[in-house]
């Protein structure tokens, strides 16, 4: 494991999402831990070059075959050795869902499935690679933990902890080749299922996962200028939700969720479902993508089109609070 010094924050930010993934898996192997690493023709893209050099017997490439990826990874995990399996998020979810359901969901194979370039990272390619409904699909498969880390150090800690935790886990990477630095203290305590309060505030609670967390922080700064104080929460684990933190928000006038994902069935949906049965529940604004396919363009362009940019979110929040 990397020495937890603050300069690691910048290093991982520069490595990008997949670079941070690769570094974490490599360090795990360097620490003498057992694991297998499988990819669907994306070993280089996953940041596994060093693993290929120094632990070639641990790395398996199945080619462009995501259904086979899941089966092979699960078979390799039969005796409990953790297996990392990587492909683009669209294909780890939409393409291979049935295999994921059987091998990881029902049979609980010890596979850490990584959906890379989720959200809008590849929005310049086509709708085919944009806005994968990965949280939605994984939520609909019982028995799989779902994590969406928000920056480099969180990706690193998530992957490491996932490898150390028995059971199937889906990790989605929403960042590109240069990540924001959200967690400024490298030794912050990370735990699967434990949301992190990044900022305190009383007027509204902003809950995000993945890259949307960065946008929420900016949103809270815009709100501050309007004298609205917002709490910002990094809810990296979508399943299981940190219900302790959610219970602590029931007195808030307004909670907001934001994610680089469809509005329906993502983090927002999960939070809304949690509160639905409660007698006292805050009003909730859900930010994400509506029921359509945004046209191709940069990630920033897509955020503006779908309403995940800070200016839009802040405006909607102010409007709602003033109502």
């Amino acid at each position: 494991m990397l020495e937890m010094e603050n300069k690691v924050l910048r290093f991982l930010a520069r490595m990008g999402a997949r670079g941070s993934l690769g570094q974490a898996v490599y360090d795990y192997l360097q620490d003498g831990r057992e694991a297998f690493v499988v990819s669907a023709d994306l070993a280089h893209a996953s940041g596994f070059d060093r693993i290929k050099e120094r632990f070639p017997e641990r790395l398996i490439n199945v080619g462009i075959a995501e259904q086979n990826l899941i089966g092979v990874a699960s078979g390799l995990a039969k005796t409990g050795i953790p297996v990392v399996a990587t492909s683009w998020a669209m294909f780890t979810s939409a393409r291979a869902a049935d295999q994921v359901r059987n091998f990881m969901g029902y049979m609980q194979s010890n596979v850490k499935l990584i959906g890379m370039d989720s959200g809008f990272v590849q929005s310049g390619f086509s709708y085919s690679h944009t806005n994968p409904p990965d949280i939605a699909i994984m939520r609909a498969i019982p028995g799989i933990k779902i994590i969406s880390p928000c920056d480099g150090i969180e990706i690193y800690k998530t992957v490491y902890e996932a490898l150390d935790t028995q059971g199937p886990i889906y990790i989605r990477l929403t960042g590109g080749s240069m990540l924001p630095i959200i967690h400024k203290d490298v030794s912050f305590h990370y735990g699967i299922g434990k949301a992190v309060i990044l900022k305190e505030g009383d007027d509204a609670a902003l809950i995000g996962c993945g890259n949307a967390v960065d946008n929420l922080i900016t949103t809270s700064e815009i709100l501050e200028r309007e004298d609205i104080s917002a709490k910002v929460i990094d809810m990296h684990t979508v399943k299981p939700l940190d219900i302790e933190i959610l219970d602590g928000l029931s007195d808030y006038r307004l909670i907001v969720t934001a994610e680089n994902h469809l509005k329906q069935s993502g983090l927002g949906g999960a939070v809304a479902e949690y509160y639905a049965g409660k007698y006292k529940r805050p009003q909730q604004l859900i930010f994400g993508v509506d029921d359509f396919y945004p046209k191709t363009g940069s990630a920033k362009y897509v955020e503006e089109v779908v309403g995940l940019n800070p200016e839009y979110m802040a405006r909607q929040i102010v409007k709602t609070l003033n109502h």
Partner: protein
Amino acid sequence: MKNLEKYDQAFIECLEVSKEQLAGLEYQQIVNWDSVGHMGLVAAIEDAFDIMMDTDDIIDLSSYEKGKEILTQNYGIEF
């Protein structure tokens, strides 16, 4: 620390080389200066000089000497 010392330190720590190996050192010449080592080096240089490097400059930083050139020309760092 003087600029040259800071620059050298970044290389020495990140790439695990000695001061004697710096002159003429090139990207991919040693095992540690692969694409991962390169990012570590960039991050360390950025930290040391409190700058954010441009993508093109990161690609162009192909040797110890070239790095100095780039930092002087594009970031006003005198050695």
